[in-house]
């Protein structure tokens, strides 16, 4: 047991199904999450956001079992208790344009039951400072840049020092420097909390996640470490001077050579695989991999 009373499995999802109309978005999905940063990778429609919304208690599964800190979110009282320990950055967090940054975060702080004015304001100042937004506290949200709004959305997720952080594409709109600061912040938070984030950025996964789950069509096709994901592409990454014959996945790199995934092209030299290589190969092969 650690600071927030987490066990190694703060979150347990077993055989969860969710459909939207005729489309099955999650199919018998199971996962256990402990302390640390876990990244969810997958193409659009893979079920990442649906899974995050179920864990954030804003969406109910059709079937299966979810336990968060041992609590059952299908029970109203336990659901409220889960929400007390939760920080959630949705994919589309929304905002009230006429609010200032401070007012918007304060509003969420009230929803998170920070009722004492001084304590609430102190917490709002803290999360604005964490996300480097102290100078924009009195700026109307509509006047903030996209990156600043994204940081503001992250700020509200940090309110109350939650034990479980769920971040849906948190680095969208951030410039490289902001992304680096974000990684530093999240990796620090992951030392004592459970952080689950979805992203399309394999660099984010390589840089800050201890564990990565690749989703495809509602199922996990990989669950392991980032280096394990990279090693999926071992012996299948090549650099060559000329374009390989189709149909293999290749692209031209900045030095004018061709990087090929899969079968070796004529004259191809073997190259070290990266997380992105493994990810792309996995999406090309639906085969289930565990590393």
């Amino acid at each position, binding site marked *: 047991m650690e600071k927030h009373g987490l066990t190694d499995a703060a979150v347990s999802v077993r055989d969860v199904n969710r459909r939207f109309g005729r489309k099955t978005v999650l199919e018998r999905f199971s996962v256990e999450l402990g302390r640390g940063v876990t990244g969810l990778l997958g193409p659009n429609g893979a079920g990442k956001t649906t899974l995050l919304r179920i864990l954030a208690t*804003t969406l109910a599964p059709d079937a299966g079992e979810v336990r968060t800190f041992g609590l059952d979110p299908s029970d*109203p009282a336990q659901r409220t208790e889960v929400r007390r320990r939760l920080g959630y950055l949705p994919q589309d967090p*929304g905002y009230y344009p006429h609010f200032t940054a401070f007012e918007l975060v304060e509003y969420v702080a009230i*929803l998170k039951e920070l009722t004492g004015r001084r304590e*609430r*304001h102190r917490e709002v100042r803290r999360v604005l400072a964490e996300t480097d937004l102290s100078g924009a*506290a009195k700026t109307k949200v509509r006047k903030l840049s996209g990156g600043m709004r994204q940081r503001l959305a992250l700020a509200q997720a940090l309110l109350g020092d939650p034990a479980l952080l769920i971040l849906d594409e948190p680095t969208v709109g951030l410039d490289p420097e902001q992304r680096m600061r974000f990684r530093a912040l999240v990796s620090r938070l992951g030392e004592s909390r459970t952080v689950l984030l979805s992203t399309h950025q394999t660099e984010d996964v390589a840089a800050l996640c201890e564990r990565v789950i690749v989703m495809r069509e509602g199922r996990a096709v990989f669950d392991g470490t980032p280096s394990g994901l990279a090693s999926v592409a071992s012996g299948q990454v090549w650099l060559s001077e000329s374009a390989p014959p189709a149909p293999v996945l290749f692209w031209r790199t900045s030095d004018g050579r061709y990087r090929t995934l899969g079968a070796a092209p004529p004259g191809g030299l073997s190259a070290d695989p990266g997380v992105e290589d493994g990810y792309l190969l996995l999406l090309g092969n639906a085969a289930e991999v565990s590393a």
Partner: protein
Amino acid sequence: MNAQWHPSGDLITRYAAGRLDSVQVMSVESHIARCPRCRTAVPYDEGWLESSWDGIADVVDAPRTRPLARMLRGAGVPEHVATFLAATPALVRSWVVAVVAVLSFAVAAAHLAAPDPSRPLDALVPFLAVAPVLPLAGIALAYGPRVDPVHEVQAATPMAGARTLLLRALAVLVVAIALTGVATPLLPGPPGLAAAWLTPSLALSAGTLALSTRFSPLASAAALAAAWLAAVTAGGVLGPDALPLFSPAAQAAYGMAALASTLLVHLRRARLDRGEFRWKSMA
């Protein structure tokens, strides 16, 4: 006082303890402001200092209180509830302006209608028809993914569901009733009858919340508003009297419906945390 002068340890101790007169305090403060060595010699309580900075930051950084929040606090509403309600989308200016406009038109219509001498109360029908519906528009906009841009964030907080919807609905109802109450004495006709909108208003609002335990507040409000307006129209056009829906018997029925709906909301309040989603036992 020259640059070589430094306050003695005793003077600094008495300064920190607040035992100096104002002239001595000014001397010590003007010195320690430019002398780092003496400044570090002043003992301080870390907790007190932090709390003081907090207090200063709270005054400097705190957002201005919105007029609505000020009004609510004046009425005895707790500070955090007042701040929360002032952010209610349904209470924003456009809804209040719309309510005032609708009421103004209804009052004007009552005055401009050429009454049939045999049916002098018909002039009140437009007002009595629209007044009960006004809070429904506010309740429809009080909670839900389609009406609140911050809904997804809000839905993952402990205040999600019944607490948010009921607080906002109550605020909407109070504002709508207050505005309608102001308009009522401006109507022609007996004051008692002009106030006949109140119980249908309560019944429709409570009914909307009761239906919201099964459907979205938006759909619930739209369905009840449409049903009410259809009933009033049918009563006015087909009935022997334009005002059967406001008779004492009907008023009693509205009162009963309001009570029954309120009880239903209380019993099913957990189901208000549903929006577009259905939490059900996964055991």
